[in-house]
């Protein structure tokens, strides 16, 4: 039996890695993956809390998050393709037409 706090720690670490990825990486693909990582951190927290509380809602929420994450990734990747066709780059720092 692993203590619930360990799961929560794991979830926080996953979430943190994801956040750092979003902020620091330049490749949009990696950034989208980092977002997935953040969401997975959240999922771990939900499932852990659900199992600790004996409440199925935690698991349900995690499934919902996965579904939404899939939709989000689909849209993100579609836009990325459109962007790549236009600019032939996946570097987020090149997206600087709109600023100030």
């Amino acid at each position, binding site marked *: 039996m692993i203590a619930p706090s360990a799961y929560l720690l794991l979830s926080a670490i996953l979430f943190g890695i994801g956040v750092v990825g979003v902020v620091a990486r330049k490749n949009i693909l990696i950034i989208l993956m980092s977002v997935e990582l953040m969401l997975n*951190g959240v999922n771990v927290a939900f499932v852990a809390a659900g199992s*600790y509380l004996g409440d199925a809602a935690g698991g349900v929420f995690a499934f919902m998050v996965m579904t939404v994450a899939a939709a989000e990734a689909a849209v993100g990747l579609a836009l990325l393709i459109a962007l790549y066709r236009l600019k032939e780059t996946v570097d987020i720092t090149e997206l600087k037409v709109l600023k100030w």
Partner: protein
Amino acid sequence: MFLGNLASLRYFLPEFAVTATILLLVVLHVVTKSPRSTASGFLSLLGVGAAIFLAGVAPAGAGRSIFEGMVAHDGFAVFFKVLTALATLVVIFMSMDSRDLAGRSQAEYYIFLLSTLLGMFLLSSATDIVMLYLALELVSIPSYLLAGYLKGQERSTEAAMKYVVYGATASGVMIYGFSILFGLTGSTQVAEIGRSLAAGKATLPMLLASVMVAVGFGYKIAAVPFHMWSPDVYEGAPTPATAFFSVGPKAAGFAVLVRFYYTVFAAADPGTGLWRLTSAVDWPFLFAALSALTMTVGNLVAVKQSNVKRLLAYSSIAHAGYMLMGFVLLSSAGIEAILFYLVVYLFMNLGAFYVVVLVSNATRGEEISDFTGLGSRAPFAAVALSIFLFALTGIPPFSGFIGKVYLFAEVIHRGVYWLAVVAALNSVVSLYYYTRIVRAMFFEEPKDASAIPVPAVSGALLVLLVAPTLILGVYWEPVARIAADSVRMLAF
């Protein structure tokens, strides 16, 4: 008392109307030969019109909780459904008129627009954090697509890409907050979470959770410092979509903000019209600071803008700041002021964007320099835009003034003088950049002096937007009463 799924269906008719329209649009898109047919626009008008009718026709009464406690059906939700649907209706007209969108597939655009509307319906009535999250994403994901709808245009695509990354991050932070709340209370019901939290003391996780949730909602209403996405997205997106973002999702964001915070962290004192904090998290102070920050940043940066769309984006950030003033007061009158302001804001902001659409249809640009001499090139549009801008500034006798009076009066009444002073100073700053456009329209020589034709239908719609902006400046009683009634039903 939660209603079961089957019993709930009859209170879900506006959502059904929108869903049915979306499905019909999908079918239409498949069967029709010409993707540019305006049929889908008219179909959407019909569907949204039906939704407004269905939402507005049946009074919510004391309110009820439907779908096993997932969604509330009360006056507050009905108010926001009508409001957001009205905004969508105007935006559909605007989109049918826009030259940017004219050469593109129509049905898909309206499918995204109406999906967002469905999301806004759910967002303004969600009472369970699972539903809340789903609704928020249902608003966000089609919005990304709307922002990037001008495929092949660099600005539009860039805007959409930024929007996806920022939106996904913000909502990720928000559900992390939700997971903490769920862990702390063992419930996904907003009301239940509130009751559990009221018992305990303020702890660091609770505090973290409240701020993380604020990130998600702050992103939706574009409050500083969670506003960074909005100027870029507003500038890059097709103008009708920009107008839509600045009113619809923002209104829905306020709906969920008010409902969530007033249910989880506060409780109504019966009979007094006041609320008290139930948990030790001092979020009103937090949001008061955000409010001041939001209006100040929005107005300051707007001063330096030369693109009218981007200027209006910053202006709409500033307006979110004004509206947040009502949110922090813990009084029904404060929320009432927000609701009233949203109605006023709906007309004046959509109106301003509509003129931008008309001008950019002709000039292919949205710089202030494209507006020079509009007073002689299209006098009616210029006068209308001036009215909208003066209303946005909050000058009497236009509706924006009354909206601000309600907000300021309540802020002063509750003794938050510093916030009123900040807001007043901000209004002065805003006068500067709004009048800059007016000056360009009437006092500067245009490069090209040819007349800009305003089609009769566009003129009529403009009149329909000008009329409430003028009328609500002198006769606002019914709207104020509706707003007051809608607040009263919030607590259930």
